[in-house]
């Protein structure tokens, strides 16, 4: 643990040094404007169908979230962004899966309604230079049984008459887990930690006066306790704790394409992403969004997303025999599934004020009985001054 803390400290120091060396004062200063944005969300998961429920509550999570973001100019070349989040959660959580009468997987849910809250603060120090820009990020999140601290540094170097930009970054973090104890599950861990270290490199290019394209390749390593302390597995009639490998290495690739169509006064956003990790999970997603400008400063943004992932090597909804490697997880997030989502967002701008609202539905298709579907309602407002 001490070695990890030292490594994180060294990384912070190195990034702070990089930030101070990243360039000279620029010829294209920031707007020097303050801004304040508020966003509230109601996230509501659909009930688990009765034919997929073994025991426990059918009502799943509802999360109410409030986010506040303020941008403060510091000098003519730098600004600080402060983001605060508070969310309250209530509902039942999936525990484990048992075989039904004909072997079909059935979900065991928690009985009691869980009430939790989470608070998070993020600080982003952005500096803009003649040929480059950089951001130092710090993040802290706190729940009653989980706290997480994160650090990030990202930079960009522009060249080719400012048409092309090389982007790069590092991020690291440490999570500490101290689960609520339950007499029904005596094997539950008491205090564990995990560390993560990652980085990315990418390129973005202005291809035409109406086309912007970006490509990014990232990798990350997670080490430590990577299991879910609240999840169990069914192994040949017995219930045991979720047990995953203590190391995970992942790679991600993303392509972003922005095309402005003057004839429609609209922009098309296309995002493609691919993912692979050493737990044998591979995933891909496609996100399309149409940003339609309308009269009277309105904008309408319909969007859709398709996501597919394969299952982790050690995942099974339940186990009829023990595994030689000792790894078990019946978490729906490690199963194979496809997700579809559709969203409609409306934005209205008036002078330096903005009001926005959106609705999104997310549904899943797969073998696991605990796969989630949700509705997300959002409302936000902001001002620049």
């Amino acid at each position, binding site marked *: 643990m001490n070695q990890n803390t030292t490594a994180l400290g060294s990384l912070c120091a190195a990034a702070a040094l990089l930030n101070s060396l990243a360039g000279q004062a620029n010829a294209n200063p920031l707007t020097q404007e303050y801004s304040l*944005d508020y*966003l509230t*969300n109601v996230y509501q998961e659909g009930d688990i169908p009765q034919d997929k429920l073994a025991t426990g509550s059918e009502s799943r999570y509802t999360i109410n*979230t409030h*986010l506040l973001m303020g941008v403060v100019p510091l000098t003519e070349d730098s600004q600080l962004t402060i*983001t605060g989040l508070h969310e309250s959660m209530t*509902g039942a959580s999936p525990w484990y899966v048992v075989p039904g009468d004909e072997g079909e997987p059935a979900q065991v849910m928690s009985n009691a309604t869980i009430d939790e809250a*989470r608070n*998070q603060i*993020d600080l982003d120090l952005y500096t803009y230079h003649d040929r480059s820009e950089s951001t130092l*990020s710090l*993040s802290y*999140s706190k*729940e009653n049984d*989980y706290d*997480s601290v*994160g*650090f*990030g540094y*990202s930079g960009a170097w522009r060249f080719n*008459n*400012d048409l092309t930009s090389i*982007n790069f*970054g590092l*991020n690291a*973090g440490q*999570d500490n887990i101290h689960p609520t104890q339950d007499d029904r599950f005596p094997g539950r861990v008491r205090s564990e930690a995990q560390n*993560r270290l*990652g980085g990315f490199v990418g390129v973005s290019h*202005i*291809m*035409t*006066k109406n*086309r*912007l*394209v*970006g490509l990014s390749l*990232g990798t*990350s390593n997670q080490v430590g306790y990577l299991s*879910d302390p*609240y999840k169990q597995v069914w192994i040949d009639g017995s219930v045991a704790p979720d047990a995953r490998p203590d190391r995970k290495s*992942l790679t*991600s690739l*993303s392509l972003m394409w*922005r095309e*402005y169509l003057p004839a429609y006064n*609209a*922009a098309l956003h296309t995002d493609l*992403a691919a993912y692979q990790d050493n737990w044998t999970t591979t*995933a891909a997603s496609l996100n399309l969004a149409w*940003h339609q400008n309308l009269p009277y400063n309105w*904008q309408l943004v319909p969007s859709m997303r398709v*996501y597919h992932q394969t299952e*982790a090597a050690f995942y099974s909804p339940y186990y009829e025999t023990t595994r030689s490697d000792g790894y078990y997880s019946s978490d729906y*997030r*490690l199963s194979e599934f496809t997700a579809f989502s559709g969203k409609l*967002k409306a934005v209205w701008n008036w002078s330096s004020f903005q009001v926005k609202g*959106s609705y999104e539905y997310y549904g899943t298709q797969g073998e696991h009985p605990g796969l989630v579907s*949700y509705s*997300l309602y959002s409302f936000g407002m902001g001002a620049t001054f």
Partner: protein
Amino acid sequence: MKHTFWLLCIVCVLQGCATVEPWERGTMAREEMAFVPDKLDQNFRDHIHYSKEGARMVGAGSGGGCGCN
């Protein structure tokens, strides 16, 4: 066949490249042409996806938070 497909894709993309003078980049300053036009909304959605799916994309920022259950 597979290589031919990717070669065609690259040729198509490169055909779209052109020199864009600074005074022609007004469109690029539009909010809807940003990679992330609404950072607050995007970060929240990313957190949901990270919480409910197996993949975790690596990008800028510091991340954090459990997002369990």
